[in-house]
């Protein structure tokens, strides 16, 4: 059964390893893959729209100052296929976001993964940077 276990591991690995992601293919014009971010904050607004979903979070800095950050994700169709529903994340939820910052230095970024504090579940953000498609 070791072989079976290896097979299952391989199959799961394959599924996790290279998620094809619906993309809008404008990543490089707007975001910088070499500027990764990881921020935790409270969701203030959601735009479940095409061609990109956006959400905004309030992040508290070390000085106690609150900054609002905007995150681009993929389109709703891509997000749904990655396990999202429009109710996965709500205003007031605490989330941790891994993202790439906007090239213009604004408080915008392209989200790669979103982890919901309430469930610990991590969802792919179906954005163009997570895979070359």
């Amino acid at each position, binding site marked *: 059964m070791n072989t079976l276990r290896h097979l299952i591991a391989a199959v799961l690995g394959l599924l996790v390893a290279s998620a094809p992601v619906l993309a809008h293919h404008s990543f490089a014009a707007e975001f910088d893959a070499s500027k990764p971010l990881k921020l935790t904050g409270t969701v203030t607004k959601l735009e479940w729209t095409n*061609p990109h979903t956006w959400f905004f979070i309030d992040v508290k800095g070390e000085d106690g100052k609150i900054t609002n950050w905007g995150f681009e994700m993929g389109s709703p169709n891509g997000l749904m296929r990655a396990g999202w529903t429009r109710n996965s994340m709500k205003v007031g939820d605490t989330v941790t976001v891994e993202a790439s910052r906007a090239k213009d230095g604004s408080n915008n970024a392209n989200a790669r993964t979103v982890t919901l504090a309430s469930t610990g579940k991590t969802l792919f953000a179906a954005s163009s940077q997570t895979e070359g498609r």
Partner: protein
Amino acid sequence: MKAAIVVIAITVSFAVSLSAQWPKYSEPGIPRDAQGQVLMDAPAPRTPDGKPDLTGDWLRADRDPRPPELSGIAAEQGRGSRAVVVEPQVQQFPADADSPPLATFWDIGTNVPGGVTLTPWAADVKKKRMAIDSRENPDANCLPMGITQFHMQPQPRKIVQTPNLIVILYEANYGTRYIYTDGRKLPPQGDPQPWWYGYSVGRWEGDTLVVETNNLRGAESGPSDGWLDVRGTPYSDQATFVERFRRPTFGKLEINVTVNDPKSFEKPFTVRINQRFLADEEPIEAVCNENQQFRVRIKVD
């Protein structure tokens, strides 16, 4: 052991099914086993007049190498966490020795031995497009993205085949192609108003649908015209395409695309796109322009 492998195979094929907006509905007329799994290797269906029927929803089943543009990303690869929910993978087909090189989404000629040879004009167009990070890619601007990007988009497309007309409805950017199979001839090249989708006619050569397209808006027409891939390999207003569609089994659609464009390429080239039948799912509405802010955010408009 054999049973275990079968279980895994089923699990994998189940995992690639998509959850969409429509509630799950088992489509009639699809060959299935006792468990309801689609028999992808069953014979392709045929229309009453004996032609292969290409009707159905299709997903691209080929993979692309990760492009260097994204190499700075600390990807999720290797993280190994099952807590990460990812988009389902489309199961690939075994390698086909008779296949032309597989088309790739970022740079269409990646798998063509020696690459595709661009003319100096086309090389210059591509260089300028890449210099501004492909921001004029029609896909990024909610515009029709051209035959090859449409074929390779990860979103599904629905083919509706009737005796005299085949329609391809793309989920991506709401693309629509009309392919006339009623015997009409293409308008002479350069005669009619060129279109984003060009003018397409199809004919059957045995079980292969041969589609010819001309009078396309080439790269001369505008910055988002004439794109073959994300990096902006161009085609010109002289380009004609020949697509050969084959459905060798119920679950597989092969599309060989030949690009004839002497203004852009030293010689014609042919690439393959494979697609897998998507059962019991429907396209998801995706109206690209409902909240398009890209050009405002990157401050070009």
